[in-house]
């Protein structure tokens, strides 16, 4: 059998259909497709993919198990390093990680590791739906309580590892639902919410306790947690504060932060209004500001709600867009209209305070800046007005200050991130932190990696070895 240079494509909902619904876009591999793709893996002795993965999944071994159609073995191998494969298989930027270093990439397409991961994970989810759960092995109870703040990927993976080690773990979450960005940010059509729910049940079966509606810093402080006999704390509160551009007219009606827009739609299910009570404005001509994954998610969501035109306004060129290539392509296929090298400078409202126009300016690229990308420079005299009736600002987020502000002695970095040492311990003894609150907005898998690393440190700390 010769080398297959092309990877097996994944079936998708066609753009014309999917832009009118919230169902998942890629449909997943079937058994035949998965085995064909698994056979493309060379099982090379250097396995650079393992190092390319932030949580070091033994990729060649689980792919080999797929080839042999032993999916139980495949899932067990993945679970050794990653308890959320149905999620990472869907949202990881594999093209920058495991697949970027795949040896097959030298001769053709890299092996579609993410799609194979998703295939195995979905098989196991189907099994769980039938009540067949295989829990990873657990150590005997240690009778020590650990508190986790935030139920995003960082908090979840930290909790799972500690539970497996026998600790008594409680996750405190401010929202009424767990999952962090997985629940309130990433849309249904990229990550169906039943998967996040299913994973929560799995964590509960592992012994992790969840307490929602508790905002640490307000409802309870970290000091209270220690008084309640928690012996260590992990902070995984993310970087959820929306940034605005602070240009005139930005507080007009129908101008949203991406966080608000996506929270209304995903967490509060406003796309099912009025069955669900939370309303959302459905714009006809929507401007989304930004060029990252969040901007793509917001733009594609606006389209699905019923917008006629969605303009993605980005100040640099397509090449500098921080969004994943796959997301950019999906957005283009669905008819999102890219307005590149363009920046809004003010918004104009009607007599009732609703936005009706965005005044924009054209940009050109200058010298490289600190980020290594060419700096956008406004072109004088190129201002123009764009008729729009809704704006979604997706220019980034910053760390949430509530916990640092209410915890004495907690050292923060330049942008409000929490300072940690090499073991992810903060400046307060017994308090650890990881994920977006430490790194600034990053990825699901790096947050998970940090959660796992912190769990190992907490274990050492509680054994008196740190």
């Amino acid at each position: 059998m010769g080398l297959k240079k092309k990877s097996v494509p994944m079936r998708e909902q066609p753009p014309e259909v999917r832009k009118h619904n919230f169902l998942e876009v890629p449909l997943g591999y079937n058994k035949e497709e998965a085995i064909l793709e698994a056979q493309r893996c060379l099982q090379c002795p250097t396995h650079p993919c393992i190092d390319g993965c932030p949580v070091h999944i033994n990729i060649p071994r689980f792919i080999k198990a797929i080839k042999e159609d032993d999916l139980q073995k495949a899932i067990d191998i993945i679970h050794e390093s990653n308890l959320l494969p149905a999620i990472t298989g869907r949202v990881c930027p594999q093209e920058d990680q495991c697949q970027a270093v795949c040896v097959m990439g030298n001769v053709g397409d890299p092996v579609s590791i993410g799609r194979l991961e998703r295939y195995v994970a979905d098989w196991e989810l189907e099994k769980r739906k039938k009540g067949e759960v295989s829990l990873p092995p657990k150590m005997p109870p240690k009778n020590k309580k650990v508190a986790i703040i935030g139920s995003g990927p960082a908090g979840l993976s930290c909790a799972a590892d500690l539970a497996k080690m026998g600790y008594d773990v409680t996750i405190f979450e401010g929202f009424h639902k767990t999952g962090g960005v997985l629940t309130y940010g990433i849309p249904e059509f990229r990550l169906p919410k039943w998967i996040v729910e299913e994973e929560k049940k799995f964590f509960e079966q592992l012994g992790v306790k969840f307490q929602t509606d508790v905002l640490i810093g307000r409802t309870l402080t970290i000091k209270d947690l220690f008084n309640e006999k928690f012996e260590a704390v992990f902070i995984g509160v993310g970087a959820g504060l929306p940034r605005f551009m602070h240009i005139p007219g930005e507080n007009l009606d129908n101008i949203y932060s991406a966080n608000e827009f996506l929270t209304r739609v995903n967490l509060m299910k406003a796309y099912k209004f009025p069955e669900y009570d939370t309303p959302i404005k459905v714009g006809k001509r929507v401007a989304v500001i930004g060029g990252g994954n969040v901007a793509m998610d917001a733009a594609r969501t606006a389209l699905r709600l019923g917008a006629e035109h969605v303009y993605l306004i980005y100040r640099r060129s397509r090449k500098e867009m921080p969004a994943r290539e796959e997301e950019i392509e999906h957005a283009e296929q669905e008819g999102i209209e890219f307005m590149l090298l363009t920046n809004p400078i003010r918004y104009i409202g009607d007599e009732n305070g609703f936005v009706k126009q965005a005044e924009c300016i054209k940009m050109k690229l200058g010298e490289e800046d600190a980020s290594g990308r060419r700096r956008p420079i406004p072109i004088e005299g190129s201002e123009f007005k764009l008729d729009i009736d809704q704006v979604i600002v997706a220019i980034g987020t910053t760390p949430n200050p509530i916990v640092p502000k209410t915890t004495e002695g907690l050292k923060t970095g330049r942008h409000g991130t929490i300072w940690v040492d090499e073991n992810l311990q903060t400046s307060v003894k017994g308090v650890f932190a990881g994920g977006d609150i430490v790194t600034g907005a990053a990825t699901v898998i790096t947050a998970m990696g940090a959660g796992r690393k912190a769990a190992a440190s907490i274990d050492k700390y509680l054994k008196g070895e740190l």
Partner: protein
Amino acid sequence: MFKILKKEVLAPKTILMETYAPLIAKKAEPGQFIVIRVNEKGERIPLTIADFNREQGTITMVFQEIGKTTNLLGTKNVGDAISDILGPLGNPTETDRYGTVVTIGGGVGIAPVYPLSRKLKSLGNKVISIIGYRSKDFVFWEERMRSSSDELLIATNDGSYGAKGFVTDVLKNLIDKGTHIDRIYAIGPAIMMKAVADLTREYKIKTIVSLNSLMVCGMGMCGACRITVGGETKFTCADGPDFDAHLVNFDELMKRLNTYKKEEKISFEKWKEEVGYGA
């Protein structure tokens, strides 16, 4: 789930509810609020913590039935439960010994003005309270307010009880009489707070208002409640809810409160049909 322990109809469409929420009761301070979600399909709405009892672990809210969510909440009874209550949120109202303080409450805003007046009085201030209602039928907590202030002035829009007119008319009288006032707190509908601000700006009397912007998260993550204060964008939930009245852009606040008028109507009409409301 948060159990309802007490329910009282204070006046038409004005309801008091006490729920068991020990963690919130333990931390609550006057001026803070909660965000509640009545049920699984419900929206998140902010309500002020009108009172709390740390020993019994209870918090009290007083709300006006105006749209779908507050009306739905109004159908709940003792023994029922509310899915979610998050709090205490926002910053406690700043209080100190200022001298003579006027506290102003309009309608349902009187509920949070009561514990605030009580606290101001206990700090040694002379407290003059002005409370305004639509008409005599809507009067509630008159006695409580009397007990927490040195002087109580009442206004009704139609003059059926107390002075005829708005709380601002009463306040203007007070000022014109030469009463020395060191500070004013006003809580009520946006239009009332704007009127108070416009009046006291002239007289340069420091005035604090508690804003009632639309909200979703209540913890600084969405920005739905943003408003302009002194030319800067602030989040009511994280930076407020109290602000210097003379710096607040009330026109913007009132416009933003109207964003979902159409959708609120759809939601309320649908609910009324489902429950046979008013039939």
